[in-house]
């Protein structure tokens, strides 16, 4: 496997004593879209900040396109384009000037045709002479994406790309990401939305409290994460589960007042409607029903537990 990013035993402890990364080992293949999924404060930004050169690692080794980020930082950084989470822009510069500046900063010769195409792709060409401070938040984010792509990176890092982004920009951004992937660019994005990882990524890594809990193909992960719980508040409490309903993995709660059924919401057909018909046939009435998807935090907790149990 040809690697875009290879991370081995990477650790980071901040001066405050906060352990942001426990030893993390991760390989990202060339040309894939990799999503780093985790709650706020899990270490996602620290991880990509180290790879991009913004944060000094405490230990471990990182290579980008085969180049060590410390010893061969020029080659490693030339390969990377970074779009950070916060909107950091030079207010008084024009769009065209700031994007051209980025290309120069990364050591690439001027290429006005390429910059023009990039700005057109991001619907920024009409705004090329506008000062950045005059732009809306969404436009500023487009500018930051243009800056990150101005030096034709082989790997694009997107830190929380859709935080505070409107629907149109989100759609444009995903279209752009797919186009970039088609040209062989590796994409690494961080998010705390399962949906986002699901929509975009080929592979997903889950990080929590500085630990990479698991890395899996999206499809496999979605089955694991796509579980829902149906809770029925019963009209009359049940002593135990009737034999007629033995086909479903049901559990009784709340002194027999509540019946719970866990199912896979991503499956093409599940048995929820059949269960309801069976309840009706058995003469079990219910006052209310609700379905709930386990929160990402719940999933993390259960994943961490699973791992500890397995160990």
């Amino acid at each position, binding site marked *: 496997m040809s690697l875009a990013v290879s991370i081995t035993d990477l650790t980071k402890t*901040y*001066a405050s004593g906060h352990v942001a990364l426990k030893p993390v080992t991760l390989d990202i293949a060339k040309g894939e879209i990799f999503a780093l999924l985790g709650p706020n404060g899990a270490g996602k930004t620290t991880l990509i900040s180290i790879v*991009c*050169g*913004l*944060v*000094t690692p405490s230990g471990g080794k990182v290579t980008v396109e085969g180049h060590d980020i410390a010893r*061969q*930082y*020029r*080659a*490693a*950084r*030339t390969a*990377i384009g*970074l779009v*950070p989470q*916060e909107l*950091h*822009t*030079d*207010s*008084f*510069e024009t769009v065209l*000037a700031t994007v051209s*500046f*980025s*290309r*120069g*900063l*990364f*050591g*690439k*010769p001027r290429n006005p045709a390429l910059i023009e195409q990039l700005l057109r792709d991001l619907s920024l060409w009409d705004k090329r002479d506008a000062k950045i401070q005059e732009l809306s938040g969404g436009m500023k984010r487009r500018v930051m994406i243009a*800056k990150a792509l101005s030096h034709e990176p082989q790997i694009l890092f997107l830190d929380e790309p859709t935080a505070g982004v409107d629907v149109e920009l989100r759609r444009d951004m995903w279209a752009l990401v797919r186009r970039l992937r088609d040209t062989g660019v590796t994409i690494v994005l961080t998010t705390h939305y399962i949906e986002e990882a699901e929509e975009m990524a080929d592979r997903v890594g889950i990080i929590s409290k500085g630990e990479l809990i698991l890395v899996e193909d999206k499809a496999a992960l979605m089955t694991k994460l796509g579980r829902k719980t149906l809770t029925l508040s019963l009209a009359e409490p049940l002593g135990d589960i009737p034999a007629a309903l033995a086909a479903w993995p049901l559990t009784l709660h709340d002194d027999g007042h509540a019946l719970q059924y866990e199912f896979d919401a991503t499956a093409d057909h599940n048995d929820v409607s059949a269960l309801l018909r069976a309840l009706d046939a058995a003469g079990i009435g219910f006052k209310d029903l609700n379905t709930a998807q386990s929160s990402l935090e719940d999933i993390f907790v259960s994943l961490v537990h699973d791992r500890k149990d397995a160990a």
Partner: protein
Amino acid sequence: MTRFNAQGVWAIYTFELARFRRTLLTGLLTPVITTSLYFVVFGSAIGSRMTEVGGVPYGAFIIPGLIMLSMFTESIFNASFGIYMPKWSGTIYELLSAPISSTETVLAYVGAAATKSTLLGLVILATSTLFVRIEIAHPVAMLAFMLLIAVTFSLFGFIIGIWAKSFEQLQIIPLLVVTPMTFLGGAFYSIDMLPPAWRTVTLFNPVIYLISGFRWTFFGTADVGFAVSLAATIGFAALCLVVIAWMFRTGYRLKS
């Protein structure tokens, strides 16, 4: 790939000069007006009562000090502002993630700041010729020393820019340390005019050596030898370089 990132240095250098261009009017008008005021106050008002210092007319005598005063302040201000702004706005992320070495970064920021303050020094010199007639004894040495001062104080400013955590801290060293030291460093008088005890105290002020050396390039005479001045300036520049190298190596207030 270990080649010099010339494109990157040029990008930062022109970016910084563009910032200067945007504020060209205030950037040049302010020192011109200030210089004129100094000439009116010190040159005319005081100079009319005190005609010569060491054989040099007082009006001409204060020119090197005036140029130094502005160049110290402007070099520090330009270089500190240049590196502080991206830290403040957050755009520093791009610099840190770019394939550019610390030497190249310093070269670009300090080069731009030094360019600006050298231009400023020349503008002040030109302005002062409107008030007094001067002949420069060693023009090449004058230009070289001016450039050296611009680079040295831009290095110092770069350190302040990295160190500062607020706009207030950015101002504090130039206002509280550099300006008083310059005034007490013989910008407007010769240390021979002081009582002996104060003369000794003054010799501990490093600015004395800078102004004195610069004055020598104008008039061929000075309070302390030119070689001493040159050594002091280069020593200070070297010290700044050591501090900057340490800052980049440890990531001091740049990287966590």
